[in-house]
């Protein structure tokens, strides 16, 4: 499991990773197989999982209520494996837009949506989203009108958050699979909205 194939010497930090892993394996704390399995499990956790939850909520109003009441239980209802996740789902409405940030580090519903993007962990996102959300959203290309209330959620402790974007118009009668394809990871963080169906 070495990175030597790239013809570059390992950096101090890459060396550190190999070192920790080999020591832990030697001491019988972990096995290489467990590490490989965990890497794969994380790779399998993609935003599509969250998009499925959103599409199901859009098409099942009672499920949506349960999702808003207890995000964890509702995801488990759909058979999603989300170890130890304490999920809160917040709903976008015409008069309310939600957006998630973790100012203290980079808390994110990883076991549902996968590893968060670099920008979510950046100093600028984390410092500015709590203070000037409209400006930061505009930098993402999302303009929120003054009369829409913005709710910024700072993920400071044990809970993790996902935004339930609004269902785009013109999608009546669509299957859950088709609907899920309109939901991006960025829409579930709140820096984007769900895509509208292509016209024509």
């Amino acid at each position, binding site marked *: 499991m070495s990175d030597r194939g790239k013809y570059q010497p390992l950096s101090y930090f890459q060396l550190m990773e190999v070192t920790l892993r080999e020591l832990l394996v030697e001491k019988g704390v972990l096995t290489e197989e467990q590490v490989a399995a965990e890497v794969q499990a994380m790779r399998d956790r993609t935003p599509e999982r969250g998009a499925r939850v959103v599409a199901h909520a859009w098409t099942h109003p009672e499920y949506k209520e349960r999702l808003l009441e207890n995000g964890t239980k509702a995801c488990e209802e759909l058979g999603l494996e989300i170890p130890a996740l304490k999920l809160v789902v917040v709903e976008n409405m015409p008069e309310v837009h939600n957006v998630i940030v973790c100012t203290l580090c980079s808390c994110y519903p990883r076991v549902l949506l996968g590893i968060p993007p670099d920008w979510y962990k950046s100093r600028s996102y984390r410092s500015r989203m709590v203070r000037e959300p409209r400006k930061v959203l505009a930098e993402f290309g999302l303009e929120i009108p003054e009369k829409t209330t*913005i709710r910024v959620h700072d993920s400071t*402790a044990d809970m993790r958050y996902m935004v339930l974007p609004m269902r785009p118009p013109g999608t009546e009668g669509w299957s859950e699979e088709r609907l899920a394809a309109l939901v991006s990871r960025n829409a579930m963080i709140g820096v984007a909205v769900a895509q509208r169906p292509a016209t024509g």
Partner: protein
Amino acid sequence: MWSSVVEVKYKVGEKVKVMKAYPLGHVRTPFYIRGHVGTIERLCGSFPNPEELAQMRDGLPAQPLYRVRFRQKDVWPDYRGGAADVLEVEIFQHWLEKA
């Protein structure tokens, strides 16, 4: 769930103030919110104190954790957004007092 839990003190809708304290060590109450007044949006449950967990202690008794809602214009003197804009933050009970 936890072997010991602190009694839940606050109800949804109640006004609370975040303590203005600056202890050493790992703390999950952001600097920017200390000293501000908000309302309880919900009780999330009770969890071991992260300040203690960070020091390899068990963090018990578990502390009630709330989501507290603040008006942006109350938190930032120069806030230039909607008057109804809010900021919702998870805060542990031991950081809160009645407002």
